[in-house]
């Protein structure tokens, strides 16, 4: 039961973040990019969470941020799973030289740490939020090729697949009727783990200022902006930092739970 409490709390946190980021902008028209009051007001002076160095409402920015980094990481994860999964599926079902080329290519990309690969892609495309998403998504794809290929191969080497090949099934039939249906749970838990990485990657890159625009209400950007005020207004860094950490912990817990269920 204690086991499940943490899963409920994790799902609860993620729903809360996402729900608030949709509901609050509908009922409140405070602009997260515009100053509303004096700068650096404490939560007591300007409830509920005070204002930042430019006098913007911290509560509004945090709540709006609940859409940006989690949404960006979701798009990045979809890119990773699609690109990496398709390459892994092709490698595992075709075998032969194509398999070797795909494995060799992804291993070579893996010689560059994921974060640096993502930074290289941002360098190529210019610092913007969109390029951060693409960089995190494509940057994690080589790792996903390796993981998904292993998962696919496990099924491909089962006796019933060999039997199916003996009965004349071709590669695409085996991929769509045996491999994908039997690996979808494992892929889902891999994708969940990847989401945690993508979230960490996205907020790290935006923390480094690679989203370009410093006015977006994004948690990594806010964490970086809070760095200058850790003495006089520590909540400016602590609030987005806690939001990032809680989200990563919640996704990790969900990923562990999903892999336990298999």
């Amino acid at each position, binding site marked *: 039961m204690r086991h499940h409490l943490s899963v409920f709390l994790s799902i609860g946190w993620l729903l809360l973040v996402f729900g608030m980021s949709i509901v609050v902008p509908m009922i409140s028209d405070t602009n997260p990019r515009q100053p509303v009051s004096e700068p650096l007001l404490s939560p007591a002076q300007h409830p509920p969470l005070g204002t930042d160095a430019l006098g913007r409402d911290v509560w509004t920015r945090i709540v709006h941020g609940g859409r940006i980094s989690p949404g960006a990481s979701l798009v990045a994860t979809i890119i990773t799973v699609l690109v990496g999964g398709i390459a892994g599926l092709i490698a595992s079902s075709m075998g032969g030289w194509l398999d070797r080329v795909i494995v060799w290519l992804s291993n070579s990309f893996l*010689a560059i*740490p994921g974060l*640096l*690969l993502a930074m290289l892609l941002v360098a190529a495309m210019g610092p913007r939020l969109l390029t951060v998403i693409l960089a995190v998504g494509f940057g994690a794809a080589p790792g996903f090729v390796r993981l998904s290929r292993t998962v696919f191969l496990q099924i491909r080497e089962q006796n019933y697949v060999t039997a199916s090949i003996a009965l004349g099934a071709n590669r695409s039939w085996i991929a769509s009727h045996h491999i994908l249906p039997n690996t979808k749970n494992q892929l889902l838990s891999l994708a969940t783990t990847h989401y945690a990485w993508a979230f960490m990657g996205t907020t790290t890159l935006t*923390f480094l200022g690679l989203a370009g625009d410093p006015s977006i209400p994004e948690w990594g950007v806010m964490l970086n902006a809070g760095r200058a005020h850790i003495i006089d207004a520590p909540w400016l860094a602590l609030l987005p930092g806690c939001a990032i950490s809680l989200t990563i912990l919640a996704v990790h817990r969900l990923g562990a739970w999903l892999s336990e269920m298999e």
Partner: protein
Amino acid sequence: MVSNSDRPSNGALATVSRRVIEGVLTAWAAVSLTFFALRLIAGDPVASLLSQGLASPDQVENLRRSLGLDAPLLIQYLKFLSGLFRGDLGTSLYTSRPVGTVIAEQLPATAQLALTGLGFALLIGLTLGVISAWKEETSLGQFAASTAGLATALPVAFTGILGLILYRQILGVMPILGHDVVRRLILPASLLGFASAGAIARVVQASLKETMKGPYILAARARGIGHGFRLLWHALRPALPPVVSLTALEAAFLFAGTVVTETVFSRPGLGRLLVTSILQGDYPIAQGLVALAAMFYTTSHMLADILAFTIDPRLRRVT
């Protein structure tokens, strides 16, 4: 590595030299991918200078010619590779200084941070891993295991800022002697190490649990050797090879981690250099740094494999 595992190899030298060739090939592939990824996606690297209004069309044309960007891509690639062999990484677009010199200036600061961080990572990781394997059933063991979990989950950007805030609070109460070293090195390095320690702890714990099942551990137990001694003396050494390989991986990730740590603690170094070069669109520096990181990664990975052969002679036969 698995394919010909049953074929006996002709000695350690062959194993090592094969591993070196493999490493060189991977490094070459990674460096080439870096080059082509930047060129194919970015298109014209100097176009951003033009769009930012930092140079006139004539100046851009001259710059392009002096950088050799008007040559075909393949020629540029061969030039880049031959430059890399001679230690020439090109010149910065903004300062016109050689990239090698710029990197060499910032390297000591990052090396100091990363090496101290690696020391902390091993110290914290081994401690947490051994405790969580040793006292598995007790709350101390569970505490160690969940601390290791937290270490992997928390972003360095946040733990760094948290550390800074706590440090300032403590410093306000009692001034620590030599706090400059603490502020500039110990604090950033320990937080950087903490981030890598979680993965190390997990591998130490899993590997120890696996080796503890071995028959020689049972034999040691039959000889009346205590649990703690069996774990630390009989099981830890055979449990180390996976830890060594992981540490080599982590060494490369530490390098990536320094990017964040240097920003949090406003330290100079390669990480800051990479971020500023990306923000300025100074592609030769970014390209040089990532190529260097890839070569560093493959080298450390290769050394780790060779070190693993030394620790566990059984591995020499199965490569």
